[in-house]
């Protein structure tokens, strides 16, 4: 599926007004990409992508920034969701948003150094100077304390640093410092062959590998304008649903771990392990890596494998019903889940929150439905939503989505069986034509956490000129601190787990 949409090139002075106009007509910020195209056009270029969920439209606002004066008026003043993108562009490309409400370093920790690694003339291997952290004495009222947590946490989880401002038991505000695992993946991808970079893209995140691979493949395929074999499309769709299923089933367990409810934790972990062993059996990788390639898929499924998928998912769906029934019949669980970590629908709109977190706050937003890709356009499914926006809503959201996934897998398997039976003989891989340097496209897919958006611009000889990975976690992290105030610190792990955001695919 192609999302060319409408492109508007605006002057710097008109940027804010152009974005505001789009926001008033039902669009939301999808992603923003800064590119250093000085060697091609003599400019830095910023691309603001907007999406209108109801009308399935994509709009692009492009602004050229002269190399001699890399500044522009900040859009974050009117669209909070643009805040992180603009801070990141300032850190990595040195383009300064004027009037930005919070210009602390985001991606590169510590003191600002006058080095911008995503500029084309910055060598990939040149290390930045070591981080020098300076702690500032916070201004506190009487009775207030700061509780710092992380980056190395007590459990086996990813690194992030949280500073809770507390008065008594209640959290008054939360400041989350992320990007500890910023690996420079996008810079690494520059100059790589578009097909070879797939392995790199899959390493963006462990548990959204399929979704990232899909987004990336779709972006490259949109540039190349190629059609895929039907069998390849259905295998991709099946993988995407298998990924959602094992993530959501695991999350049911993880949420119970957040309150130390071991029955739910262990049952969830057991079912997740079963699903991961299924993944391993049918694809050779517990996280489903290596099957999706640019132009199609690397393998097809045999009858035996399809049957294995069908039987296992059916059994899991039946068990998850019994388990969640038992979990929700527990009074203590309900007491901890209800009214904890409420995320307002207004925050969802302001910060362009995506995925189950948005849907649990009553906002219908699912790219499978709004911008159908792979085989989703031909499948029947509904997008469940909940209204309360608390941990309970996000828990039930996942359960509801597990059942939808089950229905989808059933339909996909039927389609796939037809194709495998007739054996139409079309190759699973469509060869890539020669790509025009400078052409670009975005690819979107819905992971278990929300939509992943990949922007790919191709350079000479089928290589990547610029890759920008905007994961669902990147969109949702800025909204998490809004769900915390008013809760107690011991509830934070639970709230955090209910969003279930990755750090790795946010930080890249």
């Amino acid at each position, binding site marked *: 599926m192609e999302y060319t949409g409408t492109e508007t090139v605006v002057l710097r002075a008109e940027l804010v007004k152009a974005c505001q106009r789009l926001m008033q007509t039902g669009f939301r910020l999808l992603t923003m990409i800064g590119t250093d195209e000085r060697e091609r056009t003599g400019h830095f270029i910023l691309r603001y992508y907007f999406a209108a969920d109801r009308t399935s439209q994509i709009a692009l606002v492009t602004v050229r920034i002269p190399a001699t004066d890399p500044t522009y008026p900040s859009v974050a003043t009117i669209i909070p969701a643009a805040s992180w993108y603009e801070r990141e562009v300032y850190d990595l490309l040195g383009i300064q948003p004027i009037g930005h409400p919070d210009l602390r370093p985001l991606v590169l920790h510590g003191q600002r150094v006058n080095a911008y690694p995503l500029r084309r003339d910055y060598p990939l291997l040149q290390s930045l100077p070591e981080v020098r952290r300076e702690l500032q004495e916070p201004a506190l009222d009487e009775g207030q304390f700061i509780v710092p947590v992380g980056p190395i946490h007590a459990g086996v989880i990813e690194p992030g640093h949280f500073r809770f401002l507390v008065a008594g038991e209640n959290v008054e505000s939360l400041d989350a410092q992320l990007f500890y695992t910023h690996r420079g993946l996008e810079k690494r991808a520059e100059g790589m062959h578009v097909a070879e970079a797939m392995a790199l893209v899959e*390493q963006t995140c462990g548990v959204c590998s399929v979704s990232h691979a899909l987004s990336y493949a779709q972006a490259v395929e949109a540039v190349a304008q190629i059609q895929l074999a039907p069998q390849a499309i259905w295998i991709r769709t099946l993988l995407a649903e298998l990924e959602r299923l094992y993530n959501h089933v695991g999350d049911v367990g993880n949420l119970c771990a957040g309150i130390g409810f071991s029955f739910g934790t262990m049952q969830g972990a057991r079912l997740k392990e079963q699903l991961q062993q299924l993944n391993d059996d049918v694809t050779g990788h517990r996280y489903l890596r290596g099957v999706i390639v640019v132009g199609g898929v690397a393998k097809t499924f045999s009858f035996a494998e399809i049957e294995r998928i069908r039987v296992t998912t059916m059994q899991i769906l039946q068990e998850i019903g019994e388990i969640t029934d038992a979990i929700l019949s527990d009074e203590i669980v309900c007491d901890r889940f209800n009214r904890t970590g409420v995320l307002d629908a207004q925050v969802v709109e302001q910060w362009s929150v995506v995925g189950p977190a948005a849907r649990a706050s009553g906002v219908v937003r699912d790219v499978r439905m709004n911008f159908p890709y792979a085989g989703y356009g031909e499948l029947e499914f509904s997008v469940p939503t909940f209204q309360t926006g608390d941990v309970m809503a996000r828990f039930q959201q996942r359960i509801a989505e597990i059942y939808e996934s089950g229905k989808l897998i059933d339909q996909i398997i039927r389609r796939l069986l037809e194709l495998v039976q007739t054996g139409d003989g079309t190759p699973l891989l469509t060869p890539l034509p020669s790509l025009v340097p400078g052409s670009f496209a975005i690819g979107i897919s819905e992971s278990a956490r929300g939509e992943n958006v990949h922007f790919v611009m191709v350079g000479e000889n089928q290589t990547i000129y610029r890759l920008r990975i905007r994961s669902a976690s990147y969109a949702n992290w800025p909204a998490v601190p809004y769900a915390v105030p008013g809760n107690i610190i011991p509830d934070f792990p639970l709230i955090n787990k209910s969003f279930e955001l990755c750090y790795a695919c946010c930080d890249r």
Partner: protein
Amino acid sequence: MWKLIKKRLQTAVSTRPIEEVLTSQPPRIEQGRLSCEDDLLVRFNHLAATVFGGSLHVRHVDTGSCNACEWELNALLNPVYDVSRMRIEFVASPRHADVLAVTGGVTRNLLEALRMTYEATAWPKAVVAIGGCAIGDGLIGKTYAQEGGIAPFVPIHVKVPGCPPRPQEILAGFLHAMECLTHGVEQSGS
């Protein structure tokens, strides 16, 4: 409550036999008992009983991994692998740890955390590098923001390759780390 008990009673045991988890070859049945060529289980129990008074405490350090290795470490705690029955425990503080399980290729933002965690770990200590990124042959490797391996900063005792390695492989890595530690323990006499 009744539903919970009912489900618990209905759920069949999903825990794999230790023999099956610890060995690559499938166990045989000999004289009515499970038996393996390389009896890792016996070695494991022997080591655990002599080296650390019967337990191994592991502290995990993420230095910039993609989250897959973390989930495989977490999978060790699920009912299928259930490493706590082998007296392996993930602890909250490096001061309680015998082994550091390091994942990821040391990003700039986490270098300080890795150093501090290593220094805070009591001697004798062993470092298990989990996954290609930590070992130093990861796909991302050295970039402006990442060093591409933990070797220049902490000594690696055991390497567990894979992207990510399977839980069984990580478990075998812990076993080898115990063997590495035997020497240090004998020296310090603790």
